[in-house]
């Protein structure tokens, strides 16, 4: 490949892949909000229940 094409391709692909992985990592590692939240799968997890007032 010629140099300019290689630079544009690698620059773009690395940038897009990096940002995609970064945001997905943030999603996976951000603690969920206490119940009731928007998602059904974690409804029964005791540690996530909001403390009673």
């Amino acid at each position, binding site marked *: *490949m*010629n140099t*300019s*094409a*290689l630079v*544009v*391709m690698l620059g*773009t*692909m690395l940038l*897009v*892949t990096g*940002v*995609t992985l970064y*945001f*997905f990592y*943030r*999603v*996976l590692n*951000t603690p*969920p*909000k206490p119940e*009731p*939240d*928007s*998602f*059904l*799968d*974690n409804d029964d997890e005791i540690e996530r229940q909001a403390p009673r007032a």
Partner: protein
Amino acid sequence: MSANKESWGSRVGLILAMAGNAVGLGNFLRFPVQAVQNGGGAFIIPYLVCFLVMGIPLLWIEWSMGRFGGKFGHHSTPFIVDTMHRNRLWKYIGVFGIWTNIAVASYYCYLESWTLSYVFHSLAGTFSGLDQNGVSAFFDEYVSLGDSTFGIPYEPILFFVICLLLNTWILSQGLAKGVERVAKIGMPLLILFGMFLAYKGFTITAGENGAINDSSVGLNFLWTPNFDELWSPTVWLAAAGQIFFTLSVGMGTIHCYASYVRSKDDIALNAMSAGWMNEFVEVVLGASILIPISIGYLGIDGVVNLVNSQGGLGLGFRTLPYLFYQWGDVLGAVAGVMWFGLLFFAGITSSLAMGTPWMGFLQDEFNWRRRPAAWSFGLIVLLLGMPTVLFFEYGVFDEYDYWAGTVSLVVFALFESILFAWVFGMNKGWREITSGADIKVPGIYKFIIKFITPLLLLWVFIGSLITPKGGDWAGAFRNGWVLDDGSIISKIKNTSLKRQLAEATDPAVIEQLQDTLFFVNASRILLVAMFLSIAVLVYMAYKKRVREGRI
């Protein structure tokens, strides 16, 4: 009281469903062709700029509008936008958010059914032993409802109905157990298949298996920047248009999905994650398959001719199945299954999203249950979609695609950006975007959403409305304005068809063109009738709300 009690199963499921909504056939068939036609590597600069100043703002606008409407129990755009301002006319702008989805689903499900059918034909070895003309002739025979290799009468109709039944059944299972489950299976498989095919695209060697070029020739062609093109408004218009198609903004599906997110939960990070996932599929995978493989076997001139005459769709369905078999019968079949399989997953995750606003509307406003609402969507799409199947050769498919899948997205996005930033108010809008956010939203976006995004959308709309001949803007300003056949005004006037008709001398061609003109106008009447019908339903829903004291 609404019958709508839907919820998402998990946050990752929501993001995959939202990314699946955005990832469609255009990521693999449209993006590489647009890049090639608009300056190769230089296209990516306006493309990424448009993503940052138009795509991301629209994602945040639509996610926050959806979540805001969801607080009031609304899951479709007519009543989501109705909650944002007291002017009751806004809800009729919101009709776009249902109409676009039904109209697009009507031809998109047909396209999706081709991919399903081609998966089976790849498995059955239909394309083995066919030359390029043979594969192309198979496609022509298929879309003209001719003889079927499987011996099934009206095979395209059968696959269309199977596809619709599958969509409808999944929709009837609900968000968590239907849509989300498909996204959780489909998206990883799509990425896996895409990575395999991209690997093949990167490793073609001239002289092996009939290849005439190394992969590098195709990659150079796609990625070598042509900076002269960077100053062309046509390139910027193409880049902005591609951002629309790829992110599925201006449709109403994002609003609907986001309306099931509670107000304390994040939307800012979710929107970024889903949006960038779509960009990964488009820029990294989409750019590494179609063009490098085609140029490897057909050369640059051959591919340019094919792209100009058949577009990405032609390249994907008429040419790639033949090229895959250059790798041998087994690998050819495997690559065919993977290619059409990934297109199928890209398609179905989008078409499912198109069903949800209509279903949400019926459940919210008329207390329909989920299953009948899903089946009503399937029935409407079947009725509206059959003309695209039966009269494909008369331009019905393209007509639906142009008005519902292109023009209406820009129109609705323009209205919603003005509503959000200027009518609802930027301060309230900013609070909606940042409320519950798991990332810090850069403050510059307050300015971008208020000024840049609406102006850019206005420019895209006006640019499409009065596109000068050949996209030569400088020439048009200098020498007088002659409209291009692709401009909205010329399309409305059927300029191109009428000129072809005036120039034709062969009676058979004249008859074909007259029929095409009839079907083009008939499709428009059908689409307008559909829009008006939904508007009437919205009016009835409004009156019902007034009667029940809900407004």
